[in-house]
């Protein structure tokens, strides 16, 4: 297929995935910010929501003041000044979809095009919580419908695999950043200062990735921060864990290598990262420094993106 087509498919699914992740983070931050401070609301939840989506710096540049619920939601959801705002994500996704319409199935195109049309109905203005949660639901629904239509209607060829690569690269990035912002509440018992006050922070992380029920099924015990970290980093059963993302990246890159008849640097890098995740445990990760582990991971993930780009997308 055309390199440009592969590139657009990759970014199309990345932006849809990013829109959903941001919607989840806004949702979680909202719940936390609404808690009385004695329940563990640590300072400014909106600042950490901005940090988790990687746009705190830009926010500060644009607003020059501490985030409020209004300014943060506006920036994360609607602002044209934020290239990763949900609105921008969906617009860029639709632009990419339009550029590669021939590589999409009718269902995928209709999902993204309908969302783009519907998007015009939402916008700035007063922060109305009812409207906001409608909007966030709409974003999640779009992403689910897009993913579902890809899964159910696309040919299993390189077009499908490149679009999956976009999903998992983006998802791995989002999970790692989310954990990194909250790493101080994910430390083992002897290091914890806040004790049970952090409970709602942990539960917010799980909520942000839709994993509250999964946690209980996997560990069958009350929330423990290091187990939250284990679930999100190392558990391959958890669809948003780093291990699961890399298991998928490895698989789809292998499938591409197989039909093209050639392994490359991207395949080797993904496999190495996945093996590392498989062969460690959460105690080792925490002992080595959770924050260091996560920031190295984010950098490696970016490096994999440029390897994929060099190998296929130019």
């Amino acid at each position: 297929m055309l390199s440009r087509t592969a590139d657009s498919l990759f970014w199309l699914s990345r932006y849809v995935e990013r829109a959903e992740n941001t919607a989840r983070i806004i949702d979680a931050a909202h719940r936390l910010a609404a808690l009385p401070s004695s329940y563990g609301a640590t300072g400014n939840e909106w600042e950490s929501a901005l940090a988790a989506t990687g746009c705190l710096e830009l926010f500060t540049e644009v607003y020059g003041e501490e985030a409020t619920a209004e300014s943060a939601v506006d920036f994360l959801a609607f602002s044209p000044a934020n290239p990763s705002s949900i609105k921008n994500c969906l617009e860029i996704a639709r632009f990419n979809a339009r550029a590669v319409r021939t590589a999409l199935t009718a269902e995928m195109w209709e999902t993204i095009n309908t969302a783009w049309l519907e998007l015009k109905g939402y916008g700035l203005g007063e922060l109305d919580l009812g409207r906001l949660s409608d909007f966030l639901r709409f974003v999640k629904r779009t992403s689910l419908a897009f993913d579902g239509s890809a899964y159910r209607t696309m040919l299993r060829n390189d077009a499908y695999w490149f679009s999956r690569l976009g999903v998992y690269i983006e998802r791995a990035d989002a999970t790692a950043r989310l954990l990194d912002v909250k790493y101080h509440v994910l430390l083992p018992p002897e290091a914890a200062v806040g004790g049970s006050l952090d409970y709602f922070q942990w539960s917010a992380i799980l909520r942000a990735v839709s994993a509250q029920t999964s946690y209980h099924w996997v560990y069958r015990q009350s929330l423990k921060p290091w187990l939250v970290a284990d679930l999100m980093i190392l558990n391959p059963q958890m669809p948003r864990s780093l291990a699961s993302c890399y298991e998928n990246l490895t698989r789809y890159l292998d499938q591409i290598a197989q039909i093209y008849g050639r392994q490359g640097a991207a395949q080797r890098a993904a496999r190495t990262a996945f093996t590392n995740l498989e062969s460690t445990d959460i105690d080792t990760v925490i002992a080595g420094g959770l924050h260091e582990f996560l920031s190295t991971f984010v950098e490696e993930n970016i490096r994999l993106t440029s390897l994929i780009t060099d190998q296929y997308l130019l």
Partner: protein
Amino acid sequence: MTTTAFDEMTGFGGECRQGYEIVETWLRDTPVELLRQRRHEAELLFRRIGITFAVYGDAEGEERLIPFDIVPRIITNLEWERLAAGLRQRVTALNMFLKDVYSKGEIVKAGIVPEDLIYRNPCYRPEMQGITLPHDIWVSIAGIDIVRVDADTFYVLEDNARTPSGVSYMLENREVMLRLFPELCARHRIAPVENYADDLLATLKSMAPRTAAADPTVGLLTPGPFNSAYYEHSFLADKLGAELVEGSDLYVRENIVYMRTTEGPKRVDVIYRRLDDDFIDPLAFRPDSVLGVPGLMAAYRAGNVTLANAVGTGVADDKAVYSYMPEIIRFYTGKDAILSNVPTHRCREPDALKYVLDHLPELVVKEVDGSGGYGMLVGPKADKAKIETFRAKLKAHPEKFIAQPTLALSTCPTFVDEGVAPRHVDLRPYVLTGADGVRIVPGGLTRVALESGSLVVNSSQGGGTKDTWIVDVARTFAQQSQQQQQQQSAPRA
């Protein structure tokens, strides 16, 4: 003028014409509310599928929907047979004309078309002079604009031999009609159009260069998502199973064209290009073009890639050359044109110019190289100031204009806000010419001027579209004998 127009359903205010009987009853018996509901559904359908076009110079409505009218336009198979024969003849002559113009120029030597009209035409490409194209086909895809003024008279209004657009609407309009009105469709015997993409692919592949692989690779070259017809480009590429390429996806090495793929370079043999001559190769034409492919012309001249349509075809669909089409057809085919031209005044000729200047309020004046309904004067609809502007333009550069009588274009029942009312229509059938012959899908794109009395059907000027049905009707006895007579009589001298 509107009152005297021929109506496709009722003629000049008379009885229902052949082919329209069922539709007439249907329009009479269907409640307006239901029609409105269906029209709304059609719009939703189009919007969801994303059938839009961009209007240049309109930042607000970056993408718009072409209004779709739910009342079909019907042409009987008997009428169509004659149209198709005329189209075939005309496009064959266009191809012979282009071959001649870019080789010996016999038509100029014979004094039929003035030399400067061709060789000083801005669309004439000296780069193509003396080049032999595989199979001598210059125009593989032609869109011929046709208007009707009475039961028997069809005029060709314009030939489009560069990159005619609109065929996706012909295909999508049919899909929408079949979805919205399955019963109405089923009660007619409508010639299908859905094989257009197959025909197009076969046409394109038939023209592959000799050096190409047995199964040639076809690409559709688009200027990109910002182009007004981008929807159509992606739609067609999809139906063709061809890659939709932009200039940056292609490169030329040793006079071979390749596309950049995830598996490395892949040779391209036939390019259906929807990019104007000026932009296809910055080395040969406009150096500032970022849409084209450097070296494409060299590969083309070396015979390693086929471009459809060929470079330089604009010299044949120019409106000034158009006025010579009856002579051109006679010169190459030895027969009279089956389809007439609109009688045209060539303002380059002093007598004609004088007449035109004296009769501006009743004429339509067009720029010879204009398109899309821009740069045009519709005398009866224009105010004094506009007429005077054109008078000045005409005096300054008469050779840049032609003028035609204001035609009473036929009308067709159309569902508008006030109900079903007659609106003026035209027709653009698409004619495909490959190494293996001419293919014409029965039908075409019917464009309709939605405003009452308006004669401008262009989508950029508020026109809409209709599905066009070529409907099988039985031949009456009179028609049978008339046809036999036509077959027996020799062509007029």
